[in-house]
C-alpha cells in the first residue's frame, strides 16, 4: 500500500481525533460524566450506579450509532458522487430516504386515512424500522428495475429523483388527511435520532453495515477507473453494469439501514466527501475511503455532542445540527481553497 503510506500521519491524527471525540461524546450530555469514570465503567464498574447505567445503556450505544451513521453516510455519499460524476449527489439520490419516508408515513399517517389495518398497527420502534426498511427497499427496487432498462448512468439519477417526487407527493396527500398529533409524530421521525438504539438493534445495524462497507471496499478499483469516465473505464476492461450494481447495492445497504434505524439524516453524506477531498486533495478512492470513514464518524460525533446541549435537559434535532454546523464548514473550506476539488 505505497500510495496510502504517504497519508499515514494524516490517518493517525484522524484516528486520535476520533477517539477523543468518542470519549467527549460519552462524557457530555445532560449529566456530565468525568473521563476517568467512563474508563472505570468500561473496565469494571463506575462508582456512581446511575452513571454506569447511563453509559452502558444510553451513551455508549449512541456513540457507536453515531460512528456507524456518520461513516456509512459519508461513504455512500462518496460512492454516489463518483458514480454519477456529480458533486451534488448524496446517499439519497436513489430514492432511499423518500422510500423510507413513504413507509413511515403510511404507518404513522395512514391510520387516519385508511383506518382498519393501519390503525391496528401498534406504532412501536420496530414497526417504524420495518416500515422504513420496506419502503426504501421497494422504492429502490423500482429504481433499479427501471434503471436496468437505461444505458446512461445519468438517467438513473433522474429516475431516482422522479421516484423521490412521487413518494413525497404521496406523503403530502397523507399529511393533508392526518391529525396534528400524527403529523407531529411523523415530523419527529424526520428530525432523525441517534439515541434509543438497544444493543440488539445495534448488532443488526452493525451486521448490515459491515456488508455495505465490504461491498464499498470491493468497489474501490471500479470507482477509480470510473474517474476517467465510462468510455475509458470500459476500454480498461471494467464491466460497467456490474460495478454500477455493486456500488448501488453498497449504497442502499448503508443508507437504507441508517435511515431505518436513525431516520433521514441530512447533509453528512453530501458534505463529508467534499470535506475529505478538500483536505486530502486526492481523487484516489483507496485513500479517500478510509479518510471519509474517519471524517464521517468524527463529524457525526461532534454534531451529536452539540445536539445534546451539554449541561441542559434539552436535545436538539440531530438533522438540524448536522446542517447548521456542517454547511458553514464546507463553505469556509471552498472559499479558503478557492478551487473545488472533485
Amino acid at each position, binding site marked *: 500500500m505505497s500510495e496510502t503510506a504517504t497519508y499515514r500521519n494524516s490517518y493517525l491524527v484522524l484516528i486520535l481525533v476520533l477517539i477523543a471525540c468518542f470519549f467527549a461524546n460519552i462524557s457530555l450530555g445532560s449529566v456530565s460524566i468525568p473521563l476517568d469514570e467512563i474508563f472505570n465503567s468500561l473496565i469494571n464498574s463506575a462508582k456512581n450506579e446511575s452513571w454506569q447505567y447511563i453509559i452502558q445503556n444510553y451513551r455508549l450505544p449512541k456513540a457507536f450509532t453515531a460512528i456507524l451513521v456518520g461513516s456509512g453516510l459519508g461513504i455512500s455519499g462518496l460512492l454516489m458522487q463518483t458514480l454519477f460524476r456529480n458533486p451534488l449527489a448524496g446517499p439519497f439520490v436513489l430514492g432511499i430516504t423518500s422510500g423510507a419516508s413513504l413507509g413511515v408515513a403510511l404507518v404513522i399517517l395512514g391510520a387516519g386515512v385508511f383506518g382498519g389495518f393501519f390503525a391496528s398497527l401498534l406504532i412501536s420502534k420496530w414497526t417504524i424500522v420495518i416500515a422504513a426498511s420496506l419502503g426504501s427497499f421497494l422504492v429502490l427496487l423500482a429504481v433499479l428495475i427501471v434503471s436496468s432498462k437505461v444505458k446512461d448512468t445519468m438517467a438513473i439519477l433522474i429516475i431516482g429523483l422522479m421516484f423521490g417526487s412521487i413518494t413525497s407527493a404521496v406523503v403530502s396527500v397523507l399529511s393533508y388527511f392526518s391529525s396534528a398529533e400524527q403529523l407531529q409524530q411523523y415530523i419527529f421521525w424526520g428530525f432523525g435520532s441517534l439515541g434509543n438504539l438497544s444493543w440488539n438493534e445495534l448488532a443488526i445495524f452493525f451486521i448490515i453495515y459491515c456488508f455495505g462497507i465490504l461491498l464499498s471496499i470491493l468497489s474501490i478499483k471500479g470507482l477509480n477507473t470510473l474517474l476517467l469516465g465510462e468510455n*475509458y473505464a470500459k476500454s480498461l476492461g471494467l464491466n460497467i453494469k456490474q460495478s454500477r450494481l455493486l456500488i448501488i447495492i453498497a449504497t442502499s445497504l448503508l443508507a437504507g439501514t441508517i435511515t431505518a434505524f436513525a431516520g433521514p439524516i441530512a447533509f453528512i453524506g453530501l458534505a463529508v466527501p467534499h470535506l475529505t477531498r478538500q483536505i486530502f486533495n486526492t481523487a484516489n478512492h483507496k485513500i479517500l475511503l478510509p479518510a471519509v470513514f474517519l471524517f464521517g464518524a468524527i463529524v457525526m460525533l461532534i454534531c451529536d455532542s452539540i445536539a445534546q446541549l451539554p449541561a441542559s435537559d434539552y436535545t436538539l434535532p440531530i438533522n438540524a445540527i448536522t446542517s447548521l454546523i456542517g454547511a458553514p464548514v464546507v463553505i469556509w473550506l471552498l472559499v479558503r481553497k478557492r478551487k473545488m476539488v472533485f
Partner: protein
Amino acid sequence: MSETNQHIILKTENLSIGYKTKKEETSIASNINIALKKGELIGLVGGNGIGKSTLLRTLTQVQPKLSGAIHLNHKPLETYANIDLAKTMSLVLTETIASKNLSVFELIALGRQPYTNWVGNLSEKDISIINTAIQQTNIDNLKHKKCFELSDGQLQKVMIARALAQDTDLIILDEPTTHLDMYHKVYILKLLQKLVKETGKTILFSSHEIDLAIQLCDTMIVMTKTEVTSDSPCHLIQQGTFNTLFPEDLITFDATTGSFRVKK
C-alpha cells in the same frame, strides 16, 4: 501470403457499419476491407459526417457492426472479453476525463488497471512500465502535477502515456489533434510516429490534418461517400484519391505539394 498475415494486427472483411434500431438499419459505410499492420502509423481521414467516428467505435467494440467481420490478432473481435480486449487495444478519446483532480502519475497508472489486483495495487513491474511510458512521451516534468493544471497539449501527451502504459499491441486515437495549435498538432503526430518506431506498436488515429498525415503516416485510410480506400500516402496521391475527398467547389488537392488549396 501467410508471412504477411502474421504481421496484421487488425483486419476487416466486407465490414458494414452504421446504426441499428428495432425497425431499421442505417448503413453509414459498407464493404470496408482494411488491414492494420504491426509497427505502422495509420491515419484515418474523411470529411465530417462520413463515418470516421462510427468506424472507430465499431473497431473498438463500442457499437456493434452491421455485417462483415473484424479480426483482432486473428481472432474475431466479438469473442474478446472486456478484460482481454483491454490488454490488446487502448484508446485515446475526444471526451475529457471525468475527474481532473487526478495527478498525472495516477492518471497514467490507471492504464495498468487490466493487470492490477482487485484493489488496484501497483507492482514494481507496473511502476516501471508507467515510468517508461512517461519517458517515451517526455512528460517527466509533469509527473506530479494535477490534471487541471495542464494545457490541452500537455493533457494529450498524458493521455497518450496512459494508453502506452496499458501495454497493448494497438493504440487507437480519435482526433488527437483537435483543440491544439499548429506546433502541438505536429508535435503530437511526430510523437506518435516516434512511438511506432520505438515500440513496434500499431497506432491508428483519425484526423482532419490531411497534409500532416500525408507527411507522417505509413498508411492512410481515406473515407469518401462511395468507398473506403487504404494505401500508402504516395500511392493514394498517385491514384488521385484525395481529389475525391471533398466537393470540388471550394478546395482542390495539389498533388505536387501534397496539400489542399483554396480555389481562387
